[in-house]
């Protein structure tokens, strides 16, 4: 896969997440297309590319976002690295491996954010309401979206 194309896809997904996805929110949840892209590229390209794109995408998201700088950078870099290593040992054709990986990555990212916020903003983060209102819906949303996004990415990158 072309490195430049991968970078362009990552940056475009962040820009679209900020500008376009507010029109296609589902129950006020914004899909994390960038996470699915990082999952897909990491599995295909390995830990170095996965972690690098996770770092760039996450940092862009953090700079444009309003939370702690580095929160998405750390989570997406770790996801890119871990799935890059795991990706060497899994079957890359089909959709289900990506959906399972996106599910695991979403769970990791949202729990990581929750526990980090819990450390620095204990007054603002309650597990019950955070799990019910943010973590669970987002994990389900990302997992359901993954097959569609992966099909699109396979066409863009012309992979099987």
């Amino acid at each position, binding site marked *: 896969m072309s490195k430049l194309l991968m970078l362009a896809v990552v940056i475009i997904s962040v820009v679209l997440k900020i*500008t376009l996805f*507010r029109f296609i929110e589902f129950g006020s949840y914004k899909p994390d297309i960038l996470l699915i892209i990082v999952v897909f590229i990491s599995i295909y390209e390995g830990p170095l590319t996965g972690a690098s794109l996770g770092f760039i995408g996450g940092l862009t998201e953090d700079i444009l976002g309003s939370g*702690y700088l580095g929160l998405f950078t750390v989570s997406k*870099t770790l996801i890119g690295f871990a799935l890059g290593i795991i990706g060497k040992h899994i079957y890359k054709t089909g959709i289900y491996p990506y959906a399972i990986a996106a599910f695991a990555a979403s769970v990791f990212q949202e729990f990581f954010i929750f526990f980090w916020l819990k450390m620095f903003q204990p007054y603002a983060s309650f597990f019950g309401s955070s799990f019910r209102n943010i973590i669970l819906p987002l994990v389900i949303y990302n997992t359901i979206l993954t097959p569609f996004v992966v099909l699109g990415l396979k066409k863009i990158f012309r992979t099987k």
Partner: protein
Amino acid sequence: MDISKQSREKFLPSILICVSFIILLISSVGDYHGRDWGSWLDSFFLPGNWVISKVGKKINDVNIFIKEFKNVWEENQKLNKENSFLMQRTARITELESENNRLNKLLDFSSKFPKILLSAAVIGQDPSNWSQYIIIDKGGKNNITVDMVVITADGLAGRVAKVWPDMSKVQLIIDRNSGVGAMVQRTRANGVASGMMKNICEFKYFDDKEDLQEGDILITSGLGMVYPKGILIGKVTKIEQRSLNMSRYIEITPYVNFSKLEEVFILKKNMDLVWPEMENINPEVE
């Protein structure tokens, strides 16, 4: 795979992970909103902001076009079905009337506060699901400064949290870290309207002896130096006794529909407001 490639594949990602953890630690230890230490990052990212601003405006235009196109298409379908010239006219008049009503409402609202309101279009939102911010198309070039109050014709929306030359970031009152000095209009009980995400706020830090009822209207109290007194916040929609020794849980549903924000007004001067048509407050919020 040779050893050098194998080690590079683990060594470089490890550096990236360490760097990102260091960034996160420095950011977290500082204040949640006080990212001024990283203002050099903002300067570095100015071209990115320009792109966001332009793309956001274009997408806004396209969205308006799609909405209008959708309306026309639906209208056309209806016409084909009913095959009636009269129906076409009626539908068009209804559409124009609704648009006219909306524009009149905005015009009427802005004319009630001459010279203190600046209108802005919403061009983006926070990428994270853990915070509630929007991006508007007015920035430093329009004399916008941090902590300016953002309202709509329905009530309080939030405050300006970050300013770039061409756009600004607005923290909505439903953000988990937002706290607005609030007052119950009927009893004058003071407290804080704190964001709860999911388009609701909680009324906190009030005297528990106060008589509060569902349907009570909350306005800004003017305490806290950011929000001027008298701006509509929302209506009490739920009161629950948490436990014997704890205060009540008071849920507020804001008058502003945050999922459909398209236009907002920025208060150029921080002055107390007497909200227009205070007695005819939006009855749709239940």
